[in-house]
């Protein structure tokens, strides 16, 4: 067994690095740059029952060491994802984690049932934390009871393990984490973006057409690390950590905080080869740290 391999419910990953949902489309663009089979997994863009155009532009704005986005879950809809995007990804030896979004419980259930039966989809990521849509998204992720019920409903129909993607825009993230676990979640992914704003001093108006956007990038990393640490200590299901990861020590630190694997988001826009670069850099860094196997990193901060 490779020293980079990690095991998660439904997923045997050849390494713990994967691109995060919303930052990688359905892989086609990055496939022009490198072999997607190199990745531990791919978290594809959120899929909704019907196609969505998303929000008006501007949809992104730069912030200190980060960016705001309000794309608005633009995607071609379940039918096209299932018949075109996911079959196209079959040519790569990489497990797919399908991000599922919706406005109503029924939408999530319908998407989850169909998409979880696509052969290369090995797990679902339940998106209850998108801050940029008016209905659904984050409204499911800020109330523990609602989050637990939605998890239960999706678990009942899913053919593969279900990971729930948590929002950092709550008072106590562990409360939602425990509710998702009680609802039958097989794992958790965190964090989604932090709701933020930026204004244009000349006009006094928000720079992003949607008004608010989700903050991501290195700026959110300390918050993400703290939440991965807290959540992984308060539940017994595994965590995939994300939030500002861009270098190999970020990977080490998220795993030390309690993550079994990590996802890379915004950094894909800055260094388009960041995922394969991190995978290549990880063994040398483990050597320098005197660590034989990447699994030894998982939650090592908890033991100190």
């Amino acid at each position: 067994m490779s020293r980079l391999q990690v095991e998660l419910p439904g997923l045997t990953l050849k390494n713990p690095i994967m691109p995060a949902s919303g930052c990688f489309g359905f892989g086609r663009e990055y496939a022009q740059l490198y072999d997607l089979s190199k990745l531990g997994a791919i978290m594809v863009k959120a899929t909704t029952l019907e196609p969505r155009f998303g929000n008006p532009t501007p949809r992104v704005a730069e912030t200190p060491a980060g960016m705001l986005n309000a794309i608005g879950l633009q995607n071609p809809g379940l039918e096209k994802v299932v018949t075109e995007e996911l079959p196209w990804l079959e040519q790569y030896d990489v497990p797919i984690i399908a991000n599922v979004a919706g406005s109503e419980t029924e939408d999530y259930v319908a998407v989850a049932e169909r998409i979880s039966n696509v052969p290369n989809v090995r797990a679902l990521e339940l998106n209850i934390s998108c801050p940029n849509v008016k209905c659904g998204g984050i409204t499911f992720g800020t109330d523990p009871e609602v989050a637990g019920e939605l998890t239960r409903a999706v678990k009942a129909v899913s053919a593969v393990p279900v990971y729930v993607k948590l929002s950092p825009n709550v008072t106590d993230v562990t409360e939602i984490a425990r509710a998702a676990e009680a609802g039958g979640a097989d794992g958790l992914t965190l964090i989604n973006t932090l709701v933020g704003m930026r204004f244009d001093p000349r006009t006094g108006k928000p720079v992003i057409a949607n008004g608010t956007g989700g903050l991501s990038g290195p700026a959110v990393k300390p918050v993400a690390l703290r939440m991965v640490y807290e959540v992984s200590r308060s539940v017994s299901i595994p965590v995939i950590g994300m939030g500002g990861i861009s270098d190999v020590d970020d990977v080490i630190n998220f795993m030390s905080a309690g993550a079994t694997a990590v996802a890379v988001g915004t950094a894909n826009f800055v260094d388009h080869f960041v995922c394969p670069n991190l995978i290549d850099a990880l063994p040398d860094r483990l050597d320098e740290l005197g660590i034989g196997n990447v699994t030894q990193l998982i939650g090592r901060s908890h033991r100190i």
Partner: protein
Amino acid sequence: MIRNERMKVAEQREIARNIYELVLEGKLADEIREPGRFIHVKAGETMDPLLRRPISIADYGNGRITLIYRAEGCGTRLISEKSPHGTADVLGPLGNGFPVRAAAPGTKALLVGGGIGVPPLYGLSKQLKEAGVEPVHVLGFQSDDVVFYEEKFSRLGETHIATVDGSRGTKGFVTDVLAKLGHEFGVYYSCGPVPMLKAVAEGMAGTEGYLSFEERMGCGIGACFACVCHTDSNDRGYVKVCSDGPVFKAGVVTI
């Protein structure tokens, strides 16, 4: 092929107020096949500013690319501080450029640029001229102090300058010049702010045209969906400026 390369800075100079001409050397230059494409430049060496800056390619050849950009925010300011013997982290070439072949040899082509939308028209004009097409340029700027490349464009063909304050050429907008041009054009090409593109497309209705759009970008390769525009001409109802464009046939993008 899209490359990520640390290109060598060969030259950098301010050619008008806050307008810089940057010449980069590297293998990436040999990957460019058409004018009007762009590259994505990392402004500094740290995480702040974080995102790359999309900059159109003004000219290319012999292992070099020429960029002309306005130093306006913190990112482009940092790029303007790059000096010869330094390097720039560049991803590219990206996007789709202007179709030179849309213009038939022996005909006139109209090239309309506004402000920092003027640069990609230079490489286009050179190639049109080489293909036996006669380029006619109408270039709009805010004022005399930000006009650039007038002489270079003039060497390639008839060139008209318009400035908003009248400090050089015709006072007003490019459309004021267009209204007075007497030529017949087989095709037109334009790059500049959206209101200008809209006015040019309306004024040239009935003539085949190609418009280059600018939009705030994230990844620059089509993955993040930051730079989408509405369209009525395909079944998905949108196009991405970075990877479907930035050049579109007039009428494709709803403006």
